[in-house]
């Protein structure tokens, strides 16, 4: 029994380790802490396999365990705001942070000057990381999976129990947030 648990855990490490690490890193911004959290998550998952129902997928289940670990971590550090950000439910559908009632932009999207050179600059990546960390949980999860890990929509649908429409909307919101964040912190 222990051997089977162990085999599963090794497979989870291989298939989901990077993703879990990235997600943790977005939240704690510390490589060693993020590594520890991945380890704790997989250890907890090993013993808690009976709580894994087929209602979710492995990645969603592991991410759920990771979130618990993150909450414990923040609680110890007294970071209530970080906890609130982690459990934040998806915002309303209206996108009224970005668009007026008549459908026009609240803030006009700026043209990014010299995009080619931006990616070579350390300052850019620091800001980009910060902007990614500011995404709401579901947006971060899907953006990470799709844009950074290159997962296809079908895989995301399955892993995150989302419809294709959910995915577009979440990605779109993530992009709007990131674009605005970059405009605020990178251009100015």
């Amino acid at each position: 029994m222990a051997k089977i648990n162990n085999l599963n855990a090794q497979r989870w490490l291989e298939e989901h380790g990077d993703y879990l690490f990235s997600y943790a890193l977005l939240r704690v911004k510390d490589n060693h802490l993020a590594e520890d959290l991945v380890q704790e998550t997989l250890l907890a998952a090993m013993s808690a396999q009976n709580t894994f129902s087929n209602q979710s997928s492995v990645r969603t289940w592991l991410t759920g365990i990771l979130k618990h670990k993150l909450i414990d971590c923040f609680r110890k550090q007294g970071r209530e705001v970080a906890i609130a950000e982690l459990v934040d439910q998806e915002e309303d559908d209206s996108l009224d942070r970005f668009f007026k009632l008549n459908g026009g932009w609240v803030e006009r999207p700026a043209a990014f000057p010299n995009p080619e050179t931006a990616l070579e600059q350390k300052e850019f990546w620091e800001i980009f990381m910060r902007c990614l960390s500011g995404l709401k949980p579901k947006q971060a999860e899907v953006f990470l999976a799709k844009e950074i890990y290159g997962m296809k929509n079908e895989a995301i649908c399955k892993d995150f129990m989302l419809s294709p429409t959910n995915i577009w909307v979440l990605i779109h919101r993530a992009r709007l947030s990131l674009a605005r964040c970059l405009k605020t912190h990178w251009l100015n």
Partner: protein
Amino acid sequence: MLNCKQASLLASRAMDEKLPFRERMALRLHLWLCRNCTHFTEQLAFLREAARHSKIHLDFYLTDEARQRIARALEDQPPGTDHSEEL
């Protein structure tokens, strides 16, 4: 006629799939007339490039050392250890 909110959503979708003919034409027309949304499509392309390079620049992956360390910790886990109360 599309408004910017609608056009921006279509532009996002167009990053990942070919839009149906009518939407594609409507978006094209809107972009032709709307500089803001044109900038937005440039931002979308930029974000995709940035995301593609993120893994390396943001260390978004476990190092071999970390991976091995975690693998060992998982192996060393004694059978019957119950971590589930921590959940």
